[in-house]
C-alpha cells in the first residue's frame, strides 16, 4: 500500500502538519464552556434585572402610598384629584377572570385529554390533537375582539343586562384559549402512563371509565396538575383579551356581567396613556407588576407542592 502512494505523505505526517493549523481551534475548544456559560446566564441575568427594577421602582411607589393601603384598598382612582391606589379591584378582576377561564378550560380540557388518551382510535387522535393545538396558535388579539364582537352579544341573549364590556365574556374566551394547553399536556401525562397498569386494572374487572379515573388519572396527576397551573398562570398573565373585552372599570364588585379591570389590563392602560415618569401613577405600574409577579410565583410554588404531594411514582 505504502509503495503505491510514494508521492503522498503518510496519514500520520498529515495529521502532524494539520496540528499547527488546529492550534486556534484547540484554544477555542477550551473557551467554549465559559462562552456558553455567559450566553446561558443572559436569561438568568435578565430575570434578576427585571426583579430588581420591579422592587426598586415599587419601593418608590410605596414611599408615596402606604403598603397596607395598597394591598387592602378597594378604591382605585389613579387619575382623580385625590388619587387612591387600592389594588384589590384589579386583584379581584384578575381572580374572577381566571376562575371563569378555568371553569371553562378545566373540565373541557380534561375531558378532551381523557378522550384523546383513552378512547380515541389512533387515526382520530392523529388528526384531532394537531387540530386542537392550532387553537393555541390563534393570536390573543383575535380572541380579544372575538370576545368583544361575538361572545358578548351572544351572552346578551342570556343576560339582557350585560354591559358592552364585561368580565364574563373574556373569561370564557380565555378558557377556550387555555383548553388546548390543558388537553395537550394532560394527554401527554396520561399517555405516558404504562399500558401494563391499564391492563392490571382491566384484568381485575374494572370498566374503562374506572380504569381511567382510578388508575390512569391518579398516576398522571402530577402532569395534570402542572397543566392546570400553567393554564392558571396563562390566565393570570393574559392581557390582550381582557384589555379589549372587559373594559376599564375599576369598581370593586363581584358582578360578572359588569366591566372589571385586571392587573394586566391596568398596566396596558397606564403604560399606553398619560403617566409621566416619576409620578405616583407611573410608579403604580411597578407595584401592580410586582403583585402580578408574586401572584404567579406563589401559584408555581403551590403547584410544585401539590404535584409532589399527589405524585404516584412508578
Amino acid at each position: 500500500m505504502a509503495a503505491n502512494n510514494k508521492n503522498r505523505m503518510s496519514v500520520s505526517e498529515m495529521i502532524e502538519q494539520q496540528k499547527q493549523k488546529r492550534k486556534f481551534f484547540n484554544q477555542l475548544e477550551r473557551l467554549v464552556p465559559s462562552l456558553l456559560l455567559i450566553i446561558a446566564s443572559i436569561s438568568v441575568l435578565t430575570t434578576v434585572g427585571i426583579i430588581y427594577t420591579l422592587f426598586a421602582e415599587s419601593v418608590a411607589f410605596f414611599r408615596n402610598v402606604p403598603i397596607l393601603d395598597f394591598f387592602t384598598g378597594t378604591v382605585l382612582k389613579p387619575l382623580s384629584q385625590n388619587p387612591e391606589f387600592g389594588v384589590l379591584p384589579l386583584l379581584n378582576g384578575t381572580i374572577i377572570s381566571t376562575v371563569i377561564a378555568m371553569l371553562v378550560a378545566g373540565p373541557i380540557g380534561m375531558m378532551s385529554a381523557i378522550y384523546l388518551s383513552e378512547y380515541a382510535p389512533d387515526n382520530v387522535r392523529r388528526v384531532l390533537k394537531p387540530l386542537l393545538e392550532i387553537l393555541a396558535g390563534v393570536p390573543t388579539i383575535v380572541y380579544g375582539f372575538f370576545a368583544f364582537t361575538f361572545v358578548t352579544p351572544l351572552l346578551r341573549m342570556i343576560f339582557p343586562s350585560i354591559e358592552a364590556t364585561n368580565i364574563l365574556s373574556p373569561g370564557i374566551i380565555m378558557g377556550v384559549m387555555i383548553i388546548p394547553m390543558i388537553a395537550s399536556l394532560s394527554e401527554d401525562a396520561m399517555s405516558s402512563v404504562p399500558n401494563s397498569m391499564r391492563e392490571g386494572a382491566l384484568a381485575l374487572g374494572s370498566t374503562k371509565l374506572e380504569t381511567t379515573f382510578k388508575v390512569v388519572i391518579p398516576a398522571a396527576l402530577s402532569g395534570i396538575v402542572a397543566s392546570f397551573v400553567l393554564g392558571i398562570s396563562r390566565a393570570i398573565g393574559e392581557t390582550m383579551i381582557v384589555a379589549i373585552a372587559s373594559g376599564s372599570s375599576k369598581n370593586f364588585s363581584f358582578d360578572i356581567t359588569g366591566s372589571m379591570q385586571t392587573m394586566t389590563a391596568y398596566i396596558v392602560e397606564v403604560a399606553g396613556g398619560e403617566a409621566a415618569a416619576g409620578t405616583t401613577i407611573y410608579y403604580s405600574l411597578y407595584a401592580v407588576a410586582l403583585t402580578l409577579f408574586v401572584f404567579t410565583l406563589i401559584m408555581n410554588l403551590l403547584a410544585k407542592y401539590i404535584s409532589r404531594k399527589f405524585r404516584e411514582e412508578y
Partner: protein
Amino acid sequence: MSTVMTKAINLKLVRNENERSEPEVQKEVVYDTKGLNLWYGETHALKNINMDIKEKEVTAIIGPSGCGKSTYLKTLNRMVELVPIVKTSGQITYKGKNILDKSFRVEDLRTQVGMVFQKANPFPKSIYENIAYGPKIHGIKNKKILDEIVENSLRGAFIWDELKDRLNDNAYGLSGGQQQRLCIARCLAVEPNVILMDEPTSALDPKSTLRIEELVQELKKDYAIVIVTHNMQQAARISDKTAFFLNGEIIEYDKTDHIFNNPADERTGDYISGRFG
C-alpha cells in the same frame, strides 16, 4: 437432555406415581375451548384450538416464542381484545356460557378470572390500596371488610409477614419478586375461580421464582391455574397438564408426565429436549 431436567422430570414422575395411588376425584371443567380461531388482522394466530381446562389443576402452556400461547391465555379473559384488529371464531365455554359472545359482559368474566402478568404491574399506590382496588371497584366500601380482605389476600400470597408493617408504603418500593406476589395477592382479593399467569417468573431471580412456584402449588387447591411459561423445567415441576403450542396450533395436550416422558408427537419431543425453540 440436561441432567437438571432429567432430575426434575424424574422427581415429577415419582410424585405423579404417588398421586396416582390416591383415588381420582372427578374435577369440573372450567373452560371448554372448541374450534377457536384467532386473527390479528391477516395473521392467523390461533388455529382450531380445542382444549379443556379443569378446576384445581395447574395447566401449563409451553411453546416457542410467537406460537400463540400468550394469545390463547389472553383470549381466556378477553384481554386479547385490547388489540383492536383482533377477530375470533369458535367458542370458549366458561361455566356453561360462551365468553366470546359479544353480549357476554367482559368485566364479569375478568372479575372471576384473575390474571398475573409477565412483568409485575402494581398500581403506583400503597400496598394496601393495590389489594383493596379490586374489591373497591366492585362496590365493597366497608373499611373493616377491606382490612380483612387485604390481610387474607396477602396471607394467601404468603407475603403478609413481609409486608404487614408497611401497608402504606408505595408498592414500587418492593423488590421484583415481592411486586409479583403482591400482584397475585391483588388478584386473589376479588376471589376469582381461575388465575391466568403469563410467564409470571420470567423477570425474576431463581429464589423469587421458587417462591412463586410454591405459591402456585398452594393456590391450585382452590383455583384453576393456567400458566404460560418459557421454562420447560417449570412446566414439568408445577403443572398437572401441559399443552404444547406450535405456530398457533396445539400439537399435544396431555398429562405433564406424558408430555415430558412419552410425547406422542415427534415435535413435542424435539422441543422439550431442546432441539429447537
